[in-house]
């Protein structure tokens, strides 16, 4: 049997590698292509793209790739002609929208470069997907260099030279946002619809960049997202509607990225392997129990008796009798209680474990041995618990049971 399993695993792995080998032959060579945007639905983080061109640059989904018609020659203008930023970018301090063209107009260039640039057509940059007001920032006394750095050191311009989000976050996060009354809501800058940042564009999907730390949506994000949602939930809601959470966690459709096909067959073993994962989406009682009742798997449901539908668990010699092995129900229940309750109710346990005083067989019952299911050290645990909720104790014990004295 083991040989078959190993062979199966090898085959599946080989299938994967073979498919990729075949696929690789037809792929067009685009290795190292860092320009432009990534294919549709491809994560478009700014930093990974930036790395391939050797410098960080904003996401092309936010600031579309663009190069000016002419080199900006910032260095020459600043050092040789002693021009200030506003001498060429004359609209910068009054602009109230990111779509405004803030580069020099042809007329402005011609004032000094009459012969050279008389016939030049200035190519306007595509509209960034941002809300931004230079006027607001200038009115607060923020100078150009605060965000754009020392552009005099650069000759070039274009989308790759626009400020990164990390620059914005210097003022738009933490206590500094409050001190400057700058605000830290993502929608201050990012274009939103319905109170949610727009992330789906025809060129691709805008995802958090690595400047946002652990919430960068890399390959296994699906597995990791719970932690981010738990301690940074409000950040998630900047881009996601709450209903998106429900589309998996409370879905009418099985998410295939979580559960592969024919999950109905596979889920039993999976639940026993990692039952804790199931309950993040599934209700163990109303959902799991009732389906198992309906399917005849639970002892309380249709054909719930062994005589009617056969035995589900291993034979009594393994499951209930001594000597106990790892397959014994006592061991299995301790390890997999999450899974037990998907078919069994309290009555099924109390039928053997309850004390005689409440109607169970009690210690020394029909099985002729102590039946307490409590773990070692239980008395120390239960002390004080009864006062907070006595109900579970009273399932198996009467209120005046001397055994409960230690728990009061």
């Amino acid at each position, binding site marked *: 049997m083991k040989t078959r399993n190993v062979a199966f695993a090898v085959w599946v792995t080989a299938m994967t590698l073979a498919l990729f080998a075949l696929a690789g032959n037809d792929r067009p060579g685009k290795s190292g292509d860092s320009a432009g945007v990534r294919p549709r639905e491809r994560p478009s983080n700014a930093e990974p793209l930036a790395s391939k061109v050797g410098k960080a640059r904003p996401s092309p989904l936010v600031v579309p790739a663009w190069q000016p018609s002419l080199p900006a020659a910032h260095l020459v203008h600043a050092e040789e002609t002693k021009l200030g930023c506003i001498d060429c970018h004359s609209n910068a301090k009054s602009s109230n929208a990111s779509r405004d063209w803030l580069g020099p107009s042809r007329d402005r260039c011609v004032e000094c470069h009459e012969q050279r640039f008389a016939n030049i057509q200035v190519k306007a940059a595509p509209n960034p997907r941002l809300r931004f007001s230079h006027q607001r920032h200038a009115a607060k006394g923020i100078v150009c260099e605060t965000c754009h750095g020392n552009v005099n050191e650069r000759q070039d311009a274009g989308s790759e030279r626009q400020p990164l989000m990390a620059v914005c976050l210097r003022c738009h996060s933490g206590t500094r946002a409050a001190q400057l009354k700058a605000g830290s809501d993502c929608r201050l800058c990012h274009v939103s619809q319905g109170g949610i940042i727009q992330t789906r564009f025809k060129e691709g999907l805008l995802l958090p960049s690595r400047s946002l730390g652990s919430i960068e949506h890399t390959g296994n994000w699906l597995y990791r997202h719970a932690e981010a949602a738990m301690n940074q939930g409000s950040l998630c809601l900047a881009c996601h509607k709450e209903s998106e959470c429900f589309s998996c966690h409370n879905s009418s459709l099985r998410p295939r990225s979580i559960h592969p096909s024919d999950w109905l067959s596979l889920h039993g073993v999976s639940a026993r392997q990692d039952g804790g994962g199931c309950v993040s989406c599934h209700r163990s009682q109303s*959902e799991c129990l009732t389906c198992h009742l309906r399917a005849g798997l639970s002892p309380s449901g249709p054909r719930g008796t062994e005589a009617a539908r056969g035995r589900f668990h291993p034979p009594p010699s393994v499951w209930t009798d001594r000597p106990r092995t790892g397959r014994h129900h006592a061991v299995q229940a301790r390890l997999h209680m999450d899974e037990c309750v998907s078919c069994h109710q309290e009555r099924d346990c109390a039928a053997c474990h309850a004390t005689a005083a409440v109607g169970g067989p009690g210690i020394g019952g029909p099985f002729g041995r102590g039946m307490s299911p409590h773990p070692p050290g239980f008395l120390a645990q239960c002390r004080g618990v009864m006062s907070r909720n006595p109900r579970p104790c009273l399932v198996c014990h009467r209120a005046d049971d001397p055994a409960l004295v230690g728990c009061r």
Partner: protein
Amino acid sequence: MSRAFAAVGVFFGLCVAEPARAYEAHVDGQSVLQLYAFEGYYGAPSVSRQRLTHTLGLDVVDLAGSAWNNEPWINVRVRMRMDADYGISPAEQDPSNTDYFIPGLKTAPVDVMFAYVEGGGWLHNTTGFRLGRQTFFDELGWWSLDGARVAFSPGHLFELAGYAGFEQRGGVPLLSTSRFESAGVFRGDRAGFGATQWPGYLQSTSLAPALGGSLALLAIPHLRARIDYRRVSERDQVVTSPFLDAQGQLATESRSRVSTERAGFSLGYDFGRAASADGSAVYDLYRSKLIEHRASVIGHLSENVRVYANYRYRLPTFDADSIFNWFGAVGSTDVRPRLEVDVRHDWSLGVSGGVRWYQSPWSSATTAAGTERGYERDFIGGVDSTWRERALVLRLADTAEVGDAGDRFVGDAYLGYSLYGGTLTPSAILTLARWRDHLRSDFNSSVFTYVLGCRFAPVGAPRFGVDWEHSLSDVSGQRFRVVASVDVRWP
């Protein structure tokens, strides 16, 4: 209940009828039809599912002002769902039919998943609130509340939040609902039940008071820290022992008592662009036990290579009304490293491994026949890869979990191709799986499944989808499933 839905309907109408105001209104809906049937391992009874699910959502945002203008803002968000299953037979809903009756089963239950008014930026940009039926996701888990939450964040130093209301409880049989349901107790309205009928189905009609709070640190860039506390009380009169007493009655308990009481803590830090680390822990104050702790580290070896290490310990914990807390459930520990490589801009590859084990305090106990093993181990391995071209997506995933509980080997391949600029997307999924159940070797099986589907998403129009799924198994034979969906969105 019907009045509540009528009110929601009127609200929807009012909001949608006046689009000329400054606020934005969005309506979306989804209808899904799923047809399938399956037999138990023993043949009949078979379960027939004829599910028709309608979901309707409304978002009205920036009713008072806009965050863009640094103004206080108010949003309204509502989502409701009717999840009907026309495969349910009358016998399953008849309490007198003790052979087939399933408590709480309804043909077409309607669920208000959430409905709340929220605001932010109030009182000099220090205060936010949320009022209504709302969902929480924090270290303490997925949870839902009918009530109010107020958050106060002076100077963006920290956010102190408090909430109070009633736990939104009560799952719906056979369905995954937004309503919260504590594990271990099967609750619902026992109206129409005999006093001794279905004692395990506990009465749940009284409101369950809940309160809690959180404190989150905002002041230090790249550092996140948060503590949470929550307590829910139970007030319903419920059966205790399932056995009749001397008077032929079932004993009950009706005192106000703890349902859940937990506290959680999380801490995380981003080490620039190189790495980040997170950890959290949850303490159950009712059980006086640490029931969950986890940690994760992400390291960027280069721009295209990442490593992950995840650790998690979880002890199954149930509602305080349940006996299962006290049956010595043992926690599981899960450790999973992973390596991820962006081989090319259109090709990514991931390799995962790991081990999960359950360790009980009885592992040293021995019997005459040998050692009683108080632990189990599962070894986990997986390879996954995605290749995306402009119109084509190919995703392959192989996973293997081998261990004491059972073995699973699953190979899954997805191929999708977009036509006409993404308007039409035919897709195919092939799955080959083999599983061994170590408790019942006669359940061991191999399964082959193929799914053929197509999405039609014209611009500015409803989106349609249909899937045909066919599984062949050497244990359960053939299974078929048809899924059809329509998504609408306005504007």
